[in-house]
């Protein structure tokens, strides 16, 4: 070819704030700035009503389908024979020479084998054992917060608590725990975006390899030691996983899966809950009047926040969803964040109601064989946190507009300033 092709990104239309100013077939809802500005809601509203299964020809990562209605998402997510989780559960395909192998991005039978080895660590029996440790740590964090002056809730509470949780699960050296936060952020950042926290793919890899080496050391210390109930000991001594350390990309993949899975998601639910209650003072009043609503509120927070906006699948064969023919090989984004606002299934879906009936019926944890493995842990952390917040503070007041994360996958906040108002004695 004689013609030099301009890089695609220069031709791509940057989505404006108003979804109705773009022709329907030109909509590219996966552009991260939409989420950072909070414009994505209006886009999904339009897609749900005009094109619930929508094709975007010119996405940043190539063409993809968007599935935006609750029932269609449930169908795609549960049909693991029709829709593969390989090679990736985000729209970007993995780097060919540095492909992290994690069971969230594996199909049967390998997925099942690996998940079964890891799942006991977050099973309810084990969580019962962890509950008192978690409560202690929650109390220590809350008691150390400044009262009456503003501080960043994301850093002091959301990140700190989820990081301590992960350190507990991995039995990770406590003083090094912020490394977990860093690795989680590095693993999910896209070096090609200007807002990325690493300068290049090389830098990203170097940090992940540091993560691998650190965990390699822990593995060897614990292999053969029998009964530790932390995740590393379980993998190192599990029949089907005990060779994993020799497959670095698989070991790293599973670590990253647990770190990311347990980190951003819970972190952003912790921040999101405070924000939702501030935006809905009547709901905050209900909570003050009746703390027994906390378990139900936790589910509602997780629905309202939808910490992972979508999961991607790849069609194994031609198949019809919502009247549209999806071809074998096509990428499909299941937009949980949109399905959770689908008025046809969830009454008053755009409202935050802490006493909502059937609050557990939301899409935030996904469905089918990949349904979130850590869902009970996440719920427990949030429940304990809110029990202890209500014990101490009359009001966690949000005092600025929070900064949202620049991502269409992780739906959350980088910063949110709050002021604490203690309960009157």
């Amino acid at each position, binding site marked *: 070819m004689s013609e030099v092709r301009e890089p695609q990104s220069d031709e791509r239309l940057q989505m404006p704030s108003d979804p109705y100013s773009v022709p329907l077939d030109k909509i590219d809802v996966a552009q991260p700035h939409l989420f950072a500005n909070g414009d994505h809601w209006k886009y999904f509203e339009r897609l749900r009503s005009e094109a619930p299964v929508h094709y975007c020809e010119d996405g940043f990562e190539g063409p993809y389908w968007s599935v935006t209605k609750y029932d269609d998402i449930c169908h795609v997510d*549960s049909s693991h024979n029709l829709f593969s989780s390989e090679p990736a559960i985000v729209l970007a395909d993995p780097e060919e020479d540095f492909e992290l192998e994690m069971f969230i991005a594996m199909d049967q039978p390998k997925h*099942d084998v690996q998940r079964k080895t890891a799942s006991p660590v977050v*099973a*309810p029996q084990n969580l019962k054992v962890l509950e008192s440790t978690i409560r202690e740590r929650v109390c220590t964090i809350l008691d150390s917060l400044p009262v009456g002056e503003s501080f960043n809730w994301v850093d002091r509470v959301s990140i700190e608590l989820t990081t301590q949780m992960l350190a507990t699960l991995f039995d990770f050296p406590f003083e090094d725990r912020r490394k977990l936060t860093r690795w989680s952020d590095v693993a999910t950042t896209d070096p090609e975006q200007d807002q990325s926290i690493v300068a290049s793919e090389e830098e990203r890899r170097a940090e992940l390899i540091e993560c691998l080496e650190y965990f390699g050391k822990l593995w060897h210390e614990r292999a053969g030691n029998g009964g530790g109930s932390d995740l590393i000991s379980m993998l190192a001594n599990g029949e089907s996983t005990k060779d994993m350390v020799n497959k670095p990309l698989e070991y790293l993949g599973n670590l990253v899966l647990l770190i990311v899975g347990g980190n951003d998601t819970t972190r952003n639910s912790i921040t999101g809950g405070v924000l939702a209650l501030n935006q809905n003072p009547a709901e905050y009043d209900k909570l003050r009047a009746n703390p027994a609503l906390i378990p139900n509120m936790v589910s509602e927070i997780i629905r309202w926040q939808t910490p992972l906006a979508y999961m991607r699948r790849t069609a194994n064969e031609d198949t019809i969803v919502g009247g549209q023919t999806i071809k074998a090989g096509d990428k499909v984004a299941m937009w949980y964040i949109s399905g959770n606002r689908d008025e046809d299934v969830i009454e008053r879906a755009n409202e935050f109601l802490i006493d909502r009936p059937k609050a*557990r*019926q939301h899409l935030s944890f996904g*469905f089918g064989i990949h*349904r979130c493995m850590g869902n009970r842990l996440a719920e427990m952390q949030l429940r304990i946190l809110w029990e202890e917040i209500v014990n101490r503070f009359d009001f966690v007041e949000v005092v600025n507009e929070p900064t949202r994360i620049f991502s269409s996958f992780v739906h959350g906040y980088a910063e949110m300033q709050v002021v604490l108002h203690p309960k009157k004695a």
Partner: protein
Amino acid sequence: MAKITFIEHNGTKHEVDVDNGTSVMNAAIDNLVPGIDADCGGQCSCATCHVYIDSDWVAKAGSPDDQEESMLDLNPERQPNSRLSCQIPVTDELDGLVVTLPEFQF
């Protein structure tokens, strides 16, 4: 119409009368039997409606299909008599059915 007995993990018994066609999961939810979450509302996609079928009833309750088997198989508390209760429609045949609930749903 069938009578179904749910036994909670702590031994508490609940006897309920159920119309044919209703799922065992819905029978529990409609009668406020605790211990079943049914997060997916009966789509065989969440496995939070897990029950153990009393040994006398295993054959009559039938066996899981592929989708149900995939979901059950990932549950660390899975037993040979495990079923997802949303996948069992009530019939006259099941009059007298006894199911036990697990300590936790996953």
